[in-house]
């Protein structure tokens, strides 16, 4: 495995790491940069727990070699509130208490941030399509929808009305 020195911009701060070129960004964040907010769920891009933003696009950091992340602007959960969409989402996530176990929520918040960056007023179908790659084993999905709607300043739908 070829070692290299990679210049990354994470949450607006430049950092440099010397590591294997094919080491996934997920493990560079967790093990080398001591940023554990980004989570390991499957290592195959199927669960979305490791979602980060690369130039505002949601990517699976477990499938992104560090060499491919170099030179791009990376946003992780630790810096999500620096984006206005991220800040609003995080506020709503807290206000309606979205998490149960909480393990998937960093990935959920970043996917939601990417969704609102691309589409400030998503329809219900667009919310589901935008979030469908992120598994929540506790199935907090009704609140994920609601928090996104509230952050996008759409009409509040609780999903629990009789």
């Amino acid at each position, binding site marked *: 495995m070829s070692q290299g020195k990679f210049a990354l911009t994470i949450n607006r701060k430049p950092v440099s790491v010397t590591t294997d070129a094919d080491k996934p960004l997920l493990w560079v964040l967790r093990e080398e940069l001591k940023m554990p907010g980004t989570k390991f769920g499957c290592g195959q891009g199927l669960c979305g727990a490791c979602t980060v933003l690369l130039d505002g696009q949601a990517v699976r950091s477990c499938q992104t070699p560090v060499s491919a992340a170099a030179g791009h602007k990376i946003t992780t959960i630790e810096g999500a509130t620096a984006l206005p969409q991220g800040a609003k989402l995080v506020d709503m996530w807290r206000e309606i208490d979205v998490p149960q176990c909480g393990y998937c929520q960093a990935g959920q918040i970043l996917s939601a941030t990417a969704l609102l960056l691309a589409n400030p007023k998503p329809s219900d179908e667009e919310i589901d399509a935008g979030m469908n790659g992120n598994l929540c*084993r506790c199935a907090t999905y009704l609140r994920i929808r609601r928090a996104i709607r509230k952050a996008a300043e759409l009409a509040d739908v609780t999903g629990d009305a009789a």
Partner: protein
Amino acid sequence: MSAVIDRRGFMAASLVGAGALAFEARIALAETPGAVPLNAFIRIGADNKVIIGSKNPEIGQGIRTMLPMLIAEELDLSWDQVVIEPTLANDKIYGVQSAGGSNSTPNNWLPMRQVGAAARAMILSAAAKEWGVGAASLTTAAGKVSHAASGRTAPYAAFARGAAGETAPDLAKVALKDPSRFSIIGQSKIGVDTVAITQGKPLFGIDVDMPGLIHGAIIKAPAHGATIASHDAGTALKRKGVIAVVPVNSNSVAPGKFDTLVVVADSWWTAKNAREAVKVTWDDAAQQGFSTEAYDKGAAAAFAAGPQIAHAKNGDVAKALAGAAKTITADYSYPFLAHGTLEPQNCTGRWADGKLEIWAPSQAPNNGRNDTAAMLGIKGEDITIHQTRIGGGFGRRLINDYMVMVAQVAKALPGKPVKILFDRTDDLRHDYYRPAGWHRFTAGLDAKGDLVAFRDHFVSFGKDGKPIRAAEMSPFEFPVNVLADSEIGITYLPTNLATGWLRAPTSNAVSFVYQSFMDEIAQAAGIDLPELMRRTLGAPRDLAVVPGRPVLHSGRARAVIEGVCKMANWQGGKLTPGPKGEKRGRGFGFYFSHRGYFAEVVDITITEGNNVRVDKVWACGDIGSQIINPINARHQVQGAVNEGLGQGMVEQKIEQVKGVVQAESFGDFPLIRIEQVPREIAVQFLKTDYPPTGLGEPSLPPVIPALANAIFAATGQRLRQLPLKLA
């Protein structure tokens, strides 16, 4: 057991460890500078913040928030002065500390309140001495003591040192608040870690880090129960960063045997990759014959031969069936299931000076201590266990294989903290599975359409005539327990798989088969399932159950059935077709489990491509007199409903070939996704005069048959196998 005795049963103060109020426990926790410990759960800071220890594992069920609410209520605190921290796992001090069986609420409802009330009494005694007045003349509110006659008010912090010197009152005798005075219990409180979760703070087992931490990836025998015949780690050990390859016993094979190799390296990424360079041969001849195909054949042969064991036998079913006006027969089945917690199994340990320190995402950490002590041949008290937040439990982490394994690695590498982490395939292939099962039913109706005979031949897994873990079946399953002529017979098949508890264990499967078959009986009787349930449950009374198990009260059952029918305006399963003529239907299910009563209604539409879309779910539950944290209660029900829908709708099943589980990841073991859950899940709780009981589990079981019954109503197809698949 009658309801009255049940109520008393929850009152046992002994559920808190005998040492909870002992001086030693206070010393053990007196680490926060300036904070004074009053007992094992409570420390008062100089700033009048009150640090409350939360003793039970947090898996997303909200217990870490809820138990301190009980203490804070009786201690008369304002919620914003409360700081919550997890306690160590130590059952000698804290009593039972497990997340299982929806037991935390019933087991702690009184003891935690008593702990808070005892601390309040100690503060009052200290304040009375300080001010030279009678304790009875003092009042408390929002963390302050007041003396009305002299107009004095002071924060608890002013009396903390004095209170710490007071003798703790008898927990069983301490006075508790009347519920009408509750100001925290019954008010929605946001989860204790919600803010930290949204900040990406290290909370979970996988996030444990410390200087010098090294990492282990596992190579476990592909066929459960197989052992290492030989291995060669020479090439792997030459790789940069690889430190050791340690054979361990995951607690699944005989003492002295090993079934797992742990590859240890300076990073988990390195360890995981180095696994490919390790050569292992397995002793797995005994596991080769076990497969999904063999189990299906075994079940068919069992049905043909009849049951091995008479499990429940009331009256004369054969005679009752012979005399029935109508008989109904059907075969049902469900697969093995993995838990698929999103945080893969992991654990961190450090061995130094003959003692072990553990950081564990475990639902039953004190069991883990026992297992680990036995494996290492050390004393339980030489193991210190820190409780991390847990990225999903669902029963998987009631088993402590990861703790037992990391302990062996830590002991082999003394002085070095080491964390082991499963990858996703390890996690799915080395689970403790919900056992598969098969049921052959026969029921008889009399001329009036009443259910008069019922027979179940249940086939699942066991050894020597006994069920293996989580494969048991109640001999008092409704309606067997209310019919004069009813029986359950059992055949146990062998398996090499390890089985375990999955959220609402046994109930998640039994509810599907029993309430689906009851729907078939209702159809045959020309009525709907709620009506059949009313008739069969009969007058309000306690129904026969396993001695020592919670009682099923038919009146409480009928009330939630009425409740959900009202919520959903139930008029039967037929619904008018959708705007494009899509078939629609509605189904009902009721189940009693873990002391909780739930009736649920599901509305579905059959969409293009013959897919099932769940439109809306209604859930009506009775878990007693008090919903402690309403927002969390609603969320628990919604999550459980979605999880149950997932077991029904998505292709969730664990299959086996030559002893080896085939699932690799979430591609072939899918979880329900956001597109598949309903837009609305309406939740209502009936308040009844029973002590509060747990909510992690009982709302899950009824939604699975309600879904299957809705599919029948929409399509006429009776789906008798999980996962449900339309023809």
